[in-house]
């Protein structure tokens, strides 16, 4: 058997438990460390910030008064949309790219090739989640910070779009390792993303959405699962079918888990009930 003979069965997805999340921000730091985020003198300056994972602090203080207010954190990265048909994925960002710098792999990961990007930013405009960032400046790594750069992730240049790739370089490593050990089944290796590894409370679960009986599959199917502003999720099933025929929906593969109604409503842009 050679690697080419086997069909890819993986469909990577993620579930983030917002009720467990303590908002420590360590996922964001680990992500920056893993993915060679540029270092500018003032990274607290939000409009200029380049980061794949944004730690959003949210509250329901527009609708509720003290002390009925609650606070939560949403770690937000690329939501890995797959469009209406998972078998034929079509995320909003991919179809607009004029140079095929971004594409969906057969593993469901929306990829981005930094060096192929021409910086037109169509994908950034198309992304419903603001998950893509543009290098307005040449990414710099002042002085000795260069020493901790990850050699598995290439450095982007000025004028390109970068984004979260579910740390897919780690998956490639896992596959290489498996092949070196004689295991040619491309579906065998599994890996952990940097944010998942760093999460001290295990709020981030990453895995294959198609793997029946896995922790992720169970979480995604639970009532607590909710996706960021995927408007079709709220409609009854017959209406969903009708809509799917006429319109593309992002249909992200990142799920959030929460039983708090205010948070669910906020994530779906619904007025607080």
């Amino acid at each position, binding site marked *: 058997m050679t690697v080419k003979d086997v069909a890819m069965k993986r469909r990577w997805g993620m579930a983030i438990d917002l009720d467990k999340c303590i908002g420590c921000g360590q996922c964001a730091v680990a992500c920056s460390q893993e993915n060679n*985020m540029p270092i500018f003198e003032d990274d607290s300056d939000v409009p200029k910030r380049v980061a794949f994972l944004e730690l959003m602090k949210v*509250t329901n203080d527009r609708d509720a008064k*003290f002390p009925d207010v609650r606070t939560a954190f949403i770690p937000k990265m690329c939501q890995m949309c797959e469009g209406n048909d998972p078998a034929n994925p079509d995320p909003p960002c991919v179809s607009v790219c004029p140079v095929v710098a971004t594409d969906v792999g057969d593993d469901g990961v929306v990829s981005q090739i930094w060096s192929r990007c021409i910086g037109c930013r169509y994908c950034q405009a198309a992304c419903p989640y603001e998950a893509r960032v543009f290098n307005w400046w040449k990414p710099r790594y002042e002085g000795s910070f260069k020493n901790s750069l990850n050699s598995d992730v290439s450095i982007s240049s000025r004028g390109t779009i970068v984004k979260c790739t579910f740390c897919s370089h780690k998956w490639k490593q896992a596959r290489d390792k498996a092949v070196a050990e004689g295991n040619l089944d491309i579906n065998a290796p599994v890996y952990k993303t940097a944010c998942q590894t760093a999460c*001290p409370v295990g709020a981030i679960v990453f895995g294959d959405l198609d793997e029946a009986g896995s922790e992720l599959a169970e979480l995604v199917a639970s009532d607590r699962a909710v996706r960021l502003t995927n408007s079709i999720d709220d409609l009854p099933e017959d209406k969903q079918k009708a809509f799917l025929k006429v319109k593309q929906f992002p249909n992200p593969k990142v799920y959030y888990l929460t039983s708090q109604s205010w948070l669910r409503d906020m994530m779906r842009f619904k007025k607080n009930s």
Partner: protein
Amino acid sequence: MKKIERKDFLKISGGVLAGGLTGWVFSGAPFLGFQMSVEWTQDQHVPPKGLEKFVSAVNDACPNGCDVTVRKIGERALQLKSDKGLCPSCQVSLQLLYHPERITSPLKRVGSKGSGKFEPVTWDQALKEIASRINTLSSEGKSNSIAVINKDESISAIMLDKFISASGSKNVYYESGIKSVTTPVLDGYVDYDFNNTDYILSFGSRLIEGWGDIPAMRQSYINWKKKGVKLVHADTVSTRTASSADKWLPIKAGTEAVLAFGIANYFITAKRLNSSGAEFGRWAQMIINSYPLARTATLTGLSEDQIKETAEEFLKAKNPIAVAGKGGIGISTSSAEILAVYCLNSLVKTRAASIKRNSAITYKAEFNGLDAFIKDGEINMLFLNNSNPVFKSVLGDELKKKMDKAFVVSLNPIMNDSANYADYILPSMTYFETGAAESKPVVNPYKESMDARDIIISLSGMVDKTKNLFPFAKGINADSLAGKVTATDGRFSFNIEKVKGSIETLEKKIAQNNEFPLTLVPLEIPMVGDGDGLAFPYVLKTIDPGFFFKGKLLVQINRETGKRFGLSNNTPIVLQSARGKLGKVYVRLTDTVAPDTIAIPLGFGHESYTRYGNKKGVNPKTIMSSEVDQLTGTADWWSTRVKIS
């Protein structure tokens, strides 16, 4: 007009061309073009590849003792992971290791203190002068004026403690943490068994936001969720701990201790419970007289039923714990509060909270705590072990004045606000470079930096009184100095005379105050904590724009309150307390904060904490209340009465 000959025409065009070329060359344009083409084609930094290795390291400088696995490529350390989870400071430790502003060699001050002018000197020269200063003070009989301020309870702190104590000083202090503040009150610190409790009543302790042993607390938090342990949290701000608690008691700012008094009163009067602490009778009488349920309810803003219900739940639980110590990484509390909260534990005779002591760290010094020492202590010489009291203590400005006259030595890997006032800065290593007894260093030492433990051994060898103090030559063998933790006999005293002052201060803070109608409380934001995180760019990337945006520090003010004072979002205001004014803060109206309260993020406003940490916001500690508690020796800066001026 003369006809232009062909020859002249050629001459003129030649001249124009030559002139143009010369001008173009001197304009710098070709060089700029060349530089740009280099940037686009050549200057793409490619991280060097190498052999991948995973090595383990223990952060002995971390109070949580984080175990990490470091991923190395060649000689470079790239990523960290840990099975038990890392604490925030260990998570960013790679940015400390490779910080471009690491101190390269021992530095001697050349400008005036605080000017930041230093020149490199040799280790020999630095250590000799420091040792001779100690010897001189010792021979003059002034060894007690040599003081130490440790950051935390690490091995190097224990060594410095031993060294300075052996030199004849009683002035060894730790930056205020929950253990150091509790010990003078209860004659030990409270060891909470978070894994075997079924009910937690937290008095402002933001348990999941950095309180106590961070990785262990997070593991416990997961277990609480699984086991259905009830967490009840009293807080003035909708923090993450408040939101993930099973019940949030939204109390008025600074009234955590009053709530504890009220519940104690209910236990004593309605349930006839008794505490084993000495002088309980007098204390109980004071509580019965001053904090009946009705008054507690008015002061805390809770209803009587809410307090009763909480008390009943606490009483019914099998192994409940009441936790004192407001805040996350930066802790603030008062002796009255510690006593009252521990009293609840002793009243219900819980088995999940006991008083413990560490044999190596007694926290016993000339003054009860760091702030009392800063206020009244005499300093001729001061050692700072990775600590930053100038920034973190509310009496930082007073300490600066004292440091101006004293000889100050600071051990730290990167510059901080306090080291800026030092005479000598000794560059210490990070845990990647020191290694431990059982594991090799992860990377080679950075330039001339030295293991803090080795610095202390070298120094002690040069001081007359301490020549043979340490039985080992290398710092990595110092683990044997780690103290043993033992339970005390559990006896404590209610010490009514000594907590009186603390209760008076509390009453003053929560009383009606027309001059200062608002209350300022602190807030810690992820990764920044009480300020240590701000030197690291990857931490800056996590800061929420609702707290700090484009160089502006935003204070969180309740909507109604903001309306009353005519405030609108993003307008600059000046906060004024009895201590002084704090300008350059901006308004953010949000209902996450209680009415009449202003929540201000801690950790900003560094004077000198690398180019990443500098010039970002303001430090609220400069106006926070600084009345030193007689028993804890530390100021309870948690709530401060302020006005908007």
